[in-house]
Every structure is written in structure tokens, then in C-alpha cells.
């Protein structure tokens, strides 16, 4: 028995030795995974996922729990229970803040699906209220993406999704352009991000020159970029900026 006690004393001594290294390691671990919201023990999470989920999350079941909730959210979407979809996605993204897919899906369900459903809600006869509900869903989608971007600043996918949201739901071309541009600067970005950013810029009053330079640069860069939309936008800008004819692009491609 005394040997067991001695062994525990040994473990305690080892514990004192390992403590600084272990602490430093977990700080490094945290900063590697992108920081702040990773503190899984935070109160916010506990509130959101309940006691049982909290324990599960703390014992290596975190990813699985998130997937389980995600699947539930998927089912709720199929039944068009929007409140539940929102509730579940909040849990999913809190559990797995570093999976862009979840942020993306959450925002898409809110800003595209739920908002459309709200707009076509037959139980709400007043248009003003339907529009209001729709705007609220847009805002929820935007909120998901903004937090997603904050947690995953190096993932082009989320910047791109945010740009699309600004473009399609808010008609905010400046913001859309900004986020497409941000996405295009990140590793792994789609090749069209840069072009889309320029397209959006071309719709912004007062920034035509900027947009023109951008588009022209792309046009000059390679044959591949000379898509119909690009040529159309470029011509539109040439017109608007009164570009001298000799500098304009040829009318007929090829």
C-alpha cells in the first residue's frame, strides 16, 4: 500500500515537472487552431449545448456530436422548421468553429432558404411583416458568415459566401467586391474570385476607374479570362469612362 502512495507521490512530482511544458503546449495548440472561440469550456458553449452535450464535447466526442446535430438540422430543414434549424446550427458552429462547411451551410439555410420561406409565408398576409422577417433571416445568415470568417480568416470559401450574400441579398456591390477580392487573395481560392470582385466593382458608382483597370488587367492577362460577361462589363465601363477608341478592346472577339 505504501508503494502505491509513493507511486502517486512520484506522479505528483512528475506533474509539477510537466506542468509548464503542458501548459505551453496547449497554448500553442490553441493558437495553431486559430484562437479565441476555441475555448471549449466557455460558458457560452455550455449554455448552448446543455450539460450532457458539454460533457460529450469535452471527452473527444465533439466532432461527432457536431455531426449529429448537423444531421438533425438537415432533417429540420426538410421539415422546414426554421427556428430549429437556426438553433441547431448555432450549436454546430459553436462546437466546430473551424469547419467552414458548417458556417456556410448555416448561412445558406438562413439567408436563402428560410428567408424565401418567410417571404412566401401564407400565414402572414401583411407584406411589410413578411419583408421584415426576410430581412431578419438575411441578417442571421450574414452573422453566421461574419463569425465564420473571424474564426477561419484563411478560408476563401467563407469570404466568397459572404460576398455572394452581399451581392444577391443586399445588393451591396462594394462589400461583395471587397469579399471576393479578399477570397481571391487567399490560398486555395477559386480562379473566378478575382473576376467576380471586378464585376461587382463595376456596378459601384464612382469606382468605375478602379473596376476598369481591374477588368482590363484580367483581359490582358489571358485568353481564358475573356468571358462574355467580362467583355460586356468592360465595354460598359469603356463607354462610361469615355475611354479613347484606340484603347478600347476590339469589338469582335476572335
Amino acid at each position, binding site marked *: 500500500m505504501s508503494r502505491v502512495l509513493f507511486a502517486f507521490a512520484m*506522479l505528483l512530482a512528475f506533474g509539477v515537472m510537466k506542468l509548464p511544458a503542458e501548459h505551453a503546449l496547449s497554448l500553442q*495548440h490553441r493558437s495553431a487552431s486559430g484562437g479565441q472561440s476555441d475555448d471549449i469550456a466557455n460558458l457560452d458553449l455550455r449554455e448552448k449545448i446543455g450539460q450532457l452535450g458539454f460533457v460529450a464535447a469535452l471527452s*473527444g466526442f465533439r466532432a461527432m456530436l457536431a455531426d449529429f446535430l448537423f444531421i438533425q438540422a438537415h432533417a429540420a430543414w426538410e421539415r422546414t422548421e426554421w427556428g430549429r434549424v437556426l438553433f441547431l446550427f448555432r450549436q454546430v458552429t459553436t462546437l466546430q468553429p473551424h469547419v467552414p462547411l458548417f458556417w456556410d451551410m448555416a448561412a445558406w439555410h438562413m439567408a436563402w432558404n428560410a428567408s424565401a420561406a418567410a417571404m412566401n409565408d401564407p400565414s402572414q398576409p401583411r407584406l411589410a411583416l413578411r419583408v421584415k422577417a426576410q430581412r431578419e433571416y438575411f441578417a442571421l445568415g450574414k452573422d453566421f458568415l461574419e463569425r465564420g470568417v473571424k474564426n477561419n480568416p484563411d478560408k476563401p470559401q467563407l469570404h466568397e459566401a459572404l460576398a455572394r450574400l452581399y451581392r444577391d441579398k443586399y445588393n451591396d456591390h462594394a462589400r461583395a467586391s471587397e469579399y471576393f477580392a479578399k477570397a481571391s487573395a487567399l490560398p486555395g481560392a477559386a480562379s473566378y474570385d478575382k473576376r467576380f470582385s471586378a464585376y461587382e466593382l463595376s456596378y459601384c458608382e464612382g469606382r468605375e476607374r478602379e473596376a476598369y483597370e481591374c477588368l482590363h488587367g484580367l483581359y490582358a492577362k489571358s485568353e481564358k479570362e475573356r468571358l462574355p460577361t467580362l467583355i460586356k462589363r468592360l465595354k460598359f465601363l469603356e463607354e462610361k469612362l469615355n475611354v479613347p477608341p484606340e484603347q478600347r478592346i476590339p469589338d469582335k472577339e476572335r
Partner: protein
Amino acid sequence: MSERLHRGFSPARIFAISINTLIELTRQKVFYVLLLFALLLIGCSVFMARFTFQQEFQILKDISLGAMSIFSALLAIVGTARLIPQDIDDRTVYTILAKPIPRFEYLLGKLFGVLLLLAISIALMSALFVVVLYVRERTVLNETLRQMSRAPGEQLDAAVNAIRAAGLNIDILTGVAVIYLKACLLAALTLFVSTFATTNIFTVVVMVFVYFIGHLQATAREYWLEEQSAGWVARTFLAIVALIFPDLQAFNLVDEIVAGVAIPLVLLAKTALLGIFYTAIYTLAATFVFYGKEL
């Protein structure tokens, strides 16, 4: 003359015990766990039909790696808990230790047997997982290529890249290595507990407890180090948790890796070192207690 040979440390002897332990463990039908894993994977793949491939791959990876982590921990705990008590109950330990074998060689042999089993099981699970994911990736890729055969090259490239990014990724294997280290640590700790436990149930219960507390250890440690306001009872409790329990959360790199977070090599190396260190210390403690044990 032969005396010097006997006195020394003998890897061959340890190996003989390890292999024997491995056979013993496989006879205990531990490989049913692997079957369960296979079923889980297949069930998962069937069920996933209604999701997009990104969602499917994400869930497939999460479930596979999560199951690997839990099953290997379970194997480590349940497999190790019975080893020594069983040998003592059956009196096989008498025949072994009545031979000129130092007790630490016996313990090391047993532990290595478990570690071997864990390595084999994790390798099999990984292989299965990689094959399933690879097959799914190929299928999705082929389907996409067929469907998009008339789409512009740029779109096709983007689609293929998206599938590749969501699919198999070599970094996952480093995550698996860390899962193995965690299982090794748990096996060594179980060995230690089993040297003084009175029943196997006790060992398993203690280890399940350790498993949960171990995942909370980092939190307890932080509170202890940073929260000066807590009362001394709470602080003592937190200190004991932080000092005695292993930080199992440190070995959960897999979540991050699946999410695509690049884990720096230095961090990986340090985590590995921590795992090896814990395993060694627990083995040492087990040996120490076992040397004083009446058989």
C-alpha cells in the same frame, strides 16, 4: 557465464511475452470492435446518400476518426485492465516469474503486447477508412466529370479542386498517430491502476473516470493557474487534477486536422513527446508498485 546473460535486460524475452499477450488479447475477441467500426463506416456511407459530398466527407471523417479515437481508448483500457489480474488469478504469473525474469520485463512485455494490438487495430481501422473515403472520392469525382463534361474548364477545375480538398488528406494520418499515442498513454495508466486495483471493474471504472477528467484537465489547469480568486479547497482540487491527470485534450488534434487547420510540425513533435513521456512515467509507476506486490 550464462549468469551475465540472465541478469541483463533481454528484448527477446520481452518480445516473447508481448507476442503471447497479443495472442491472448486477440483470443478475447477484441477484434469485434473492429467489426463494429466497419459496420459504422458502411452504415454511415449508406446513410450519407442525401448529403452533398462536402457534408458526406466531413461527416465520414469525423465519425471515422472519432470512432477510432474512442475505440482505441476502449481497447487500451479494457484490454490492459485484465492482463495482470488474470495472470495472477490463473497463477500463470507464478510460472513466469519463477523463471529468471525481472518483473519489469514481464510488465514491459505485457504492455508492449497491448501497444502492438493497438497499433494493429488502428492500422486496420485507418486502412478501412482510407479505402472507403478513397472509393467515395473517386465515385464523386467520376460522377462530377460525367455531369460536367460540357461545362467550361474553369468550373470543372474548381469542382475537382473542391472534391480533392474535401476528400483524403495525408495530414489525417498524423492525426491518427496522435490517437495512437493517446491510446498508449491510457494503456500504460491502466496497467498502473491494475497493479493495485482489487478488481478489474474497479480498474475500468477508474479509467473511464480518468478519461473524462483527462479531457477536462486543461481547463482545470487553466483555472488553477489563472484564477487566483477561488477558495483554497477548490484550488487544491484543481491542482491535484492538473498535476495527477494526463491532459487528454492535447491529443485531440484530429478535430483540427479534419477541419483543415495546418498543425505545425513542432507542435506535433511536442505532443508526441508528451505522449511518450506520460506512457513512460505510468509504466515506471506500474513497475514500482508491481515490484512490491505479493503474488
